[in-house]
């Protein structure tokens, strides 16, 4: 939205407010007395999210309903990874949320880019991987090991797919969403 903060009805009296410095109690500037919370705007330098399709002008079809358009508007540099890169996407072609290219800086062709999460119409969540992820995230040591194996020791995206995306997901029929 580009505004510095947004008022929120609620949260006063919670410990959430005592733990966060980006939400404070403020007095209504118009009536001079009513209190509500104001939340500081978030302005990420970079946003990265995955979509079903993008074109080379940065128009994006998320494939699902999402708040990603807010994220794209708020962020300085926006990178969209997509299952498919197509010639042209207009608002009427988009499935789910459409993000106009004006908000997007880079598009990356990244099949299975949502893995181990799912991507609408292409593949679901990798439940076995997710279960392991939850187990490894229980302590710092095993989580560091997860990050090492799945991020730092992976050479590139193709290498990640080769190592971690289930083989039967990579058959053409499955990849096309059949």
């Amino acid at each position, binding site marked *: 939205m580009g505004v510095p903060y947004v008022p929120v*009805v609620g949260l006063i*009296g919670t410990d*959430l407010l005592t733990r966060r410095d980006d939400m404070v109690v403020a007095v209504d500037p118009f009536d001079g007395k009513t209190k509500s919370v104001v939340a500081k705007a978030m302005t990420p330098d970079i946003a990265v999210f995955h979509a079903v399709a993008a074109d080379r002008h940065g128009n994006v079809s998320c494939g699902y309903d999402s708040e990603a358009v807010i994220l794209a508007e708020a962020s300085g540099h926006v990178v969209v990874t997509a299952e498919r890169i197509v010639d042209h996407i207009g608002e009427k072609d988009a499935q789910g*949320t459409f993000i106009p290219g004006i908000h997007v800086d880079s598009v990356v062709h990244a099949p299975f880019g949502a893995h181990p999460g799912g991507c609408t119409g292409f593949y679901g969540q990798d439940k076995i991987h997710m279960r392991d992820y939850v187990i490894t995230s229980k302590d710092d040591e095993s989580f560091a090991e997860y990050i090492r194996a799945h991020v730092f020791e992976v050479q590139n995206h193709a290498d990640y797919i080769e190592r971690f995306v289930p083989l039967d997901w990579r058959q053409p029929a499955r990849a096309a969403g059949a």
Partner: protein
Amino acid sequence: MTVNYSDDELMAILLSREVRDGEVSACGALSHIPAAALLLAQATHAPNAQLIILDSIFYPFRTSKQFHFLAQRGELGLFFVSGVQIDRHGNYNLHQLGADHDHPKMRFPGGYGGGMIYYGAQRTVVFRTEHTKRTFVDKVDYISAAASTPPDVLRRGSPSKIISTKASFRFDKGDGLLHLDAIHPGYSFDDIRDSTGFDIGTATPAATPAPTEQELHTLRHAVRTKMIDTGTYAAWASRALAAHVAAVT
């Protein structure tokens, strides 16, 4: 005659009685009991209730921003929420156990959403499937949502009731405290006093009207079928709302 029912069925029925016809009523994530309660209310006394069940086909919005501002405007009549702990002031905790906030004994998903809706919805009913001294406490370890606010704070609504498997409490805006409102069938005043971590006074309140055969029948048939057919907590509905399950619970 005695009617058998499970705790889950009792809770769904008691929550459904809180739904008013024509109002917008909602529940959030991981809310199978409230989801059943909403559908039961719509199938019985509130045919014109407008339901919002997150992550289901009973969700009319494209983005959570729309739901956020519905609550902010005060257009949400009723919201169902649960907490790990609930205290005598009607505050609930959905964040963490342990009073040292930097080193909690256990951390939960938390919830900005509930903490906002507690002030935005006209009424919130807090439900809890465990009624013990560790869940009904004198003071919560972490206030995820506060029941009372000073008069100069903008607030649309307040909690109305807290409902457990044993009893229900009414929240009094005047003194800012929970008051024992009704005791469910099968429990005595002493049972409630012994399982509640705060003073419940001395007056024995009314008995909660037992689930009726019609409520149970509708829950176990029409509601169960609807939940299974629409994929709304289908696995839970199939298991927990089957008549033969209650008999062995």
